[in-house]
């Protein structure tokens, strides 16, 4: 294992050096950093040029200059020495000073997009595979192809226009017009029909119920001015956490498992009681409080499972933990929603919450809830833009992977043994269908970081993409190289992680 990682690392380092060399030469071909002086009327032009030549070592031939750069970059590997040297910008700022800020912004963006795309994409893909050839499946397939063919900059601009400006305008008089209510309700109804399927009668029932329910919710939103003062409230929290509990039981233990139901029930009940108890504490919470609360929730969930226990203690603990954490998540969502009116009323927001640029409202005054809502309103659109394409890809992979696995002999064997379909899917098929996805996620992360260049431009997000783009167009070679080295190291790192995950998921693959 250790020797495998070591060998991989050595190869990776060599690869990065080689790629960096290619990149360095290409970047130097892409523009002359002295260009801007050619039409300058500054009296001290010569001297400024001399300074820049010295700073960027432009008098050294490119190939040699690369090794000077590499020497500086190699110092980054010395731990704690703080000797990292990735060169200077044309203005003489060390690239190492600029990188951390830029990385922070970009990672914030890309992480959320990746996580969401993985979770939603895999879920939809698997459901789509299990519902192969249904309307839902065709719809998902078409949708994923469509999303895959959408230029992200186009989507980004559309989102800004419709979601940000459109929704903000809508908030001036937040009532969904009746035709829209009908359209949304019917659309939702059709979606559920496609998802659940069944015979004609069942379809009609599903359609009727889901359409009416959606319409009712939307009308309630209209009447209660929900978009201005949103909240879930205790009843919805209770109903939804009960739903979560049921889903968890159904997925992990089967709906007939009494102990599992009991575990989930207790978790939900505790959550509901806590909902009332914790509110005053939440009002004065800091991030650390929330972290402690989250840990406590996890422990309570595990303990519930532990004490209900029975023969399948591990399973019960999983159910308890998942139910507790997800239900507690609802409390958080509810609390964030209640911060919404405060947020909307702030003088810096002026009733237009969804932002089109940047990562935060400057000088926001407010508690963590308001801050959280602010991050949400700023990250929403760029994350969506980044997510849609990855989502499409993951859906395809997950669907294909699941179908592949479902056609394997061992699944047939499992079914033939008389195992419940739930167990076959969750235990046998799901886990194995994840194996190929692990590699794809790793490969995709690099692509996603690259895609951030466009998204960052559309949403004026000053991350690494912006740094790269600026560096390339100025031209200012060292930030471009700084960007590259981060991207390359990340890509290699994620591929390594993918390989390790691979071996964890698939015992046949040994990492030697």
């Amino acid at each position: 294992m250790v020797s495998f990682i070591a060998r991989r690392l050595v190869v990776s380092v060599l690869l990065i050096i080689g790629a960096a060399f290619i990149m360095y030469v290409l970047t130097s071909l892409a523009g002359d950093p002295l260009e801007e002086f050619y039409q300058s009327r500054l009296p001290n032009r010569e001297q400024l040029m001399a300074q820049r030549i010295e700073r960027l070592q432009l008098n050294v031939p490119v190939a040699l200059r690369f090794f000077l750069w590499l020497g500086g970059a190699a110092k980054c590997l010395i731990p704690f020495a703080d000797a990292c040297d990735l060169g200077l910008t044309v203005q003489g700022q060390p690239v190492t000073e600029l990188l951390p800020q830029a990385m922070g912004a970009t990672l914030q963006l890309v992480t959320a997009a990746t996580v969401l795309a993985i979770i939603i994409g895999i879920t939809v893909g698997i459901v789509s595979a299990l519902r192969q050839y249904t309307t839902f499946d065709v719809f998902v397939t078409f949708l994923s192809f469509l999303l895959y063919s959408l230029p992200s900059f186009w989507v980004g601009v559309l989102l800004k226009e419709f979601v940000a400006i459109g929704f903000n305008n809508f908030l001036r008089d937040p009532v969904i017009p009746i035709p829209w209510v009908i359209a949304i309700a019917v659309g939702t109804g059709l979606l559920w029909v496609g998802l659940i399927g069944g015979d004609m009668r069942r379809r009609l029932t599903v359609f009727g119920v889901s359409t009416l329910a959606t319409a009712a919710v939307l009308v309630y939103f209209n009447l209660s001015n929900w978009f201005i003062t949103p909240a879930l409230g205790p009843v919805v929290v209770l109903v939804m956490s009960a739903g979560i509990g049921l889903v968890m039981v159904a997925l992990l233990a089967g709906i007939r498992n009494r102990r599992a139901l009991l575990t989930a029930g207790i978790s939900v009940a505790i959550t509901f009681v806590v909902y009332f108890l914790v509110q005053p504490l939440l009002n004065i919470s800091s991030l650390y409080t929330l972290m402690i609360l989250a840990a406590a929730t996890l422990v309570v969930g595990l303990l519930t499972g532990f004490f209900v226990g029975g023969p399948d203690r591990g399973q019960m603990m999983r159910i308890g933990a998942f139910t507790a954490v997800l239900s507690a998540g609802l409390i958080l969502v509810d609390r964030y929603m209640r911060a919404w009116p405060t947020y909307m009323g702030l003088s810096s927001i002026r009733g237009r919450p969804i932002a089109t640029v940047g990562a935060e409202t400057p000088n926001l005054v407010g508690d963590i809830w308001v801050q959280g809502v602010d991050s949400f309103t700023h990250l929403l659109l760029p994350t969506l833009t980044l997510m849609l394409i990855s989502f499409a890809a993951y859906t395809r992979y997950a669907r294909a992977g699941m179908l592949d696995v479902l056609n394997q002999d061992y699944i047939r064997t499992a079914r033939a043994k008389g195992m419940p379909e739930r167990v076959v899917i969750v235990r046998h098929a799901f886990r194995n269908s994840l194996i190929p996805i692990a590699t794809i996620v790793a490969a995709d992360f690099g692509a996603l970081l690259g895609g951030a260049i466009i998204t960052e431009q559309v949403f004026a997000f000053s991350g690494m993409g912006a740094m790269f783009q600026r560096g390339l167009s100025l031209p200012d070679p060292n930030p471009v190289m700084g960007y590259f080295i981060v991207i390359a190291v990340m890509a290699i790192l994620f591929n390594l992680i993918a390989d390790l995950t691979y071996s964890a998921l698939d015992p046949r693959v040994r990492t030697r």
Partner: protein
Amino acid sequence: MKINRIGAPLAVATIAAMALVGCTTTDPGEEPPASTGGTITVAEVNELTAFTSSTSDTNLDMNGKFIGYTRSSFFYLDEALNLIPDTSFGTVEKTSDEPLTVKYTLADTASWSDGTAITANDLLLAWAAQSGYFDDASLDPETGEVASGTRYFDYAGDTSGLGLADRPVVGDNNMSITLTYSEPYADWQLVNPIDAPLHVVADKAGVSVEDAVDALTTAPRGDAANPNENATIKALADTWNTVFTATSLPSDSSLYLSSAAFVLDSWTPKQSITLVRNEAYKGDLVPNVDTIVVRFIGDAQAQVTALQNGEVDIINPQASADTIASLQALDGVTTLTGDQFSYDHLDITFNTGVFQNAPDVREAFLKTIPRQQILDAIVTPQNPEAQQYDSQIFFPGTAGYEETIKSNGADAYHEVDIEGAKALLNGATPTVRILYNINNPNRVAAFQAIQASAQQAGFVIEDAGAENWGSLLGSGTYDASIFGWISSGVGVGGVPQIFGTTGGGNYSGYSNAEVDRLANLLQVTLDKDEQDAIQVEIDKLLWADGYGVPLFVAPGVMAHSDSVSGVVYYPGQAGVGWNFWEWTKS
């Protein structure tokens, strides 16, 4: 054992509960009541990189704008490039013409935001930086690098003007300096001897204020022949060169002291800076708003959307036709368009090639330049009121420009005159090689238009466009060139640079004894009106010689939400914030 089983979780729970309570925060409560003035949010393309814009590394637009918000000076330039003195900071007085003697007296209200009074010490430091007085470096003529001696202050501007002055004489209880120039310096009015606070620079350099002042007032003028490094000044200069750069808010607030109405309050890297009222400010330029937030939004289109969405109040994006069109279509937004201080021009090579000693060919060629067509194609979509740019020297909107176009003869080239050109050529078909930047679409478009037009008159146009056009300037490998000058818009120092026979920016090989004489005269003329008169003369000569034609002035755009008033278009580098004290927010 039993106790432990109960006790351990109990202990854990207790500790957890304590931690939980310990980690809470107090309720921040309501937003502080909005004070009267309100907040204005401005979008800027680039991020702040330093709390100074005087060194060559920090001489960037946003740094300059930051200085505009947070530093007072003896004068500022209004939108028509008039010098407006700020007497609440200090007064400038020319006490003698012969020799030129100028006295700068600080108002006693002038102070830094840490409470320290602004004194002649600070003026001395600025003078030392801007004059290069102590420099004794000799430059390698090949590379431009320092061969021997020391170049102390890495000042971004030209030191030759203030370098003419002697060491200033401090007076009025350390509240004034008097500069005496060894020869007349035409741009003396643009000297603004205030920069970083000396007490901060001295402190960071590890020098006492007394020693610093002592060094500045006693160290001899630098002599490149006998370099002799002064350690104190070196320490001061090194600090001055580097200490004010930053990528985030430094913990030491002395690095961003203010002497104007606003002071930096916070800086979220890559996002925004926030400027709040400077409580110590006692001057006249008192703003109506309490807070100015500058957000960094690089993309022009993103700026427009942000303005539309109410996230920012004022924007100052890169101009493009659609930026302007979409701005004009927005409700509740006022769009301001105008010129920028940069212009594209066609120059003719005088010392080699087809135009050498051939005034008729020059005139014929210039007659074929489709100036209106180029203007219509490139500028009109962005600035519908744009007109042909008719001066080699003055910028539109200035008093001198109005004066010069009456007489300089530029109107002869307003319309393409193919027949007139043919008559002048008299059947000849001269070949003209035109140099331009093939990577600049505007230049390419201009070249194509000129090519099409000139060919009609019989010229053979050779495409000498190159990507390394800059290094080809002045090489004599072309007969005409299309490129742009970027200018500060004020001062007369550029005139001999470009049009003088030996000027560093004279790539055309242009030489006219009368122009040289006038340009030299201009250099020693101190009165603005007389300067203008001389420049009008030069302009007329340039047009008569067929120096070339200016093509257009680059358009610029600013826009603001209608909840803000007092925003005035400004063509210079100070940008939209040049009159921030006049802004109001409803």
